[in-house]
């Protein structure tokens, strides 16, 4: 057996091509050859050829009805594509790998593949990354493996913040809170809620932040927790226009335990002008009267 990868590939191609003398392709040997060739190419750092070889190997495994091996080869191909820097192809290859994993019935590796893809392309194609993360999350949630989704949510939030889509980021954090609630991970849940409030405040949308805080306060445990108290102090500092208080809270330890991206946002608070929101307090009094009557 020659170890020259080119020769191996040529041989494998011949094995798979159907001619008069060959009525059915010999996938087993062909796949073997492709795998060897791909490894040889990888060692020789010929990433393009290695990627192609892996793709062929994957197809071979598919023909041999072993989707697991096919998926594994596809992932290797995608990793090599990452080395080359061909981002669209990276996304495509990982997606195919994920589909093959789903065929095996294993949601976890499928979501992992999509997560790897998203991480690879998030610098270059952030929108594609967002899509990939969302798909990965939905894969896990369908399989009831919410806890594994936390990391994906956090990465998704980071991407949104980089894209400056703050409402989307806050929404992602709230979904994280929901997933955490389902798996009773209260600490993560409360941190997610506090993060959402901070994102809203950073986007200088105080009303939304207040609304968010009120919604989250429905959960009594959140009210009494560290994060809840920090959130309420932030909101009240904003409504009183107390810049010093906001700065002090931003340095507090509760915020330092949150995600990196959110800590960065927190330290930059307050953004823009912080005027005492009188309208808010008036509204509050109006509501009180309504309650009394």
């Amino acid at each position, binding site marked *: 057996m020659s170890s020259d990868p080119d020769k191996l590939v040529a041989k494998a191609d011949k094995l798979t091509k159907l001619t008069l003398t060959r009525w059915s392709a010999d996938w087993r040997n062909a796949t073997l050859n492709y795998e060897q060739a791909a490894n040889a190419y990888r060692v020789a750092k010929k990433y393009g050829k290695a990627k192609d070889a892996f793709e062929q190997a994957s197809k071979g495994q598919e023909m041999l009805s072993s989707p697991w091996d096919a998926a594994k080869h596809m992932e290797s191909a995608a990793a090599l594509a990452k080395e080359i820097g061909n981002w669209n192809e990276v996304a495509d290859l990982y997606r195919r790998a994920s589909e093959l994993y789903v065929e095996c019935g294993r949601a976890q590796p499928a979501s992992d593949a999509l997560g790897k893809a998203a991480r690879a392309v998030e610098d270059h194609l952030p929108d594609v990354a967002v899509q990939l993360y969302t798909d990965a999350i939905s894969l896990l949630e369908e399989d009831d493996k919410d*806890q594994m989704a936390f990391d994906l949510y956090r990465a998704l939030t980071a991407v949104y913040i980089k894209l400056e889509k703050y409402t989307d980021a806050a929404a992602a954090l709230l979904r994280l809170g929901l997933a955490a609630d389902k*798996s009773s*991970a209260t*600490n993560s849940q409360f941190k997610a809620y506090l993060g959402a409030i901070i994102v809203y405040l950073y986007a200088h949308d105080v009303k939304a932040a207040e609304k968010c805080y009120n919604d989250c306060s429905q959960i009594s445990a959140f009210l009494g927790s*560290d994060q809840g108290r920090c959130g309420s102090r932030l909101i009240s500092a904003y409504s009183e226009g107390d810049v010093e208080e906001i700065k002090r809270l931003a340095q507090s330890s*509760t915020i330092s*335990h949150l995600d990196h991206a959110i800590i960065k946002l927190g330290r930059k608070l307050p953004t823009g002008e912080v005027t005492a929101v009188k309208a808010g307090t008036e509204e509050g009094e109006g509501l009180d009267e309504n309650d009394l009557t």
Partner: protein
Amino acid sequence: MSVIDLITRVDSICRKFDKYDVDKQAELNVSGDDAFARLYAVVEAELDSTIEKAESVASAKNRAAVVAINAEIRRTKARLLDEIPKLQRLAMKKVRGLSREELEARSDLVSALKDRIASVPDGTTTAAQPSSNGGASASTGIKFNSNYDGSFDSDYFQNTEETDRFRQEYEMRKMKQDEGLDVIAEGLDTLKDMAHDMNEELERQVPLVDEIDEKVDKASSDLRSTNVRLKDTVNQLRSSRNFCIDIILLCLVLGIAAYLYK
């Protein structure tokens, strides 16, 4: 907890909640007569305990204890003397079922009580043997009565500088302690957060480990059965096949040896 503790605790609880005892209250409010008698009894009981305390002073070894007890006595005396006018008013009240003589006797009782209170020794230097004006007995005593708590004022003012320095040092030390406590609090916050995260991580891994456990169990049982079958197969092979080969080879070797030695 001993029985005595139980009894004392039950007693104090009963006393505390006596005011909720409807029957008892009804009993007490039956007539003003009992109000006077009650108050009188209370004052007398307190007076008795005060006298006891005064007697214990004589046997107390510790100077500080003596001072403390004396202070306590003086305070109680002042309080009781305040109660006396109330008692007198009650005594004046005309109550049905009570004869005129008894009414007068009451006011006498009250004044006698007053004298007795004043006569309790409380460690004041002037021998407080009261005359008929018991209330004014030992005018110095009265001063101490009301001002005892501030009586160290006279000493206080002597040590202004020392106490100032002490107070400053105390404040500084307190500030340093506060700073240290702040640092500790932050560290604890971080620890708490880490512990929570570890907790969540472990909970995440519980079902995974369960899965691993199952799979490993299955794999090991598969292995065991495979091993047994393999052993059987190998034994079978050995017994028949290898034996024949052994014999054949042996014959060959003997043949060759014979040929060589021929």
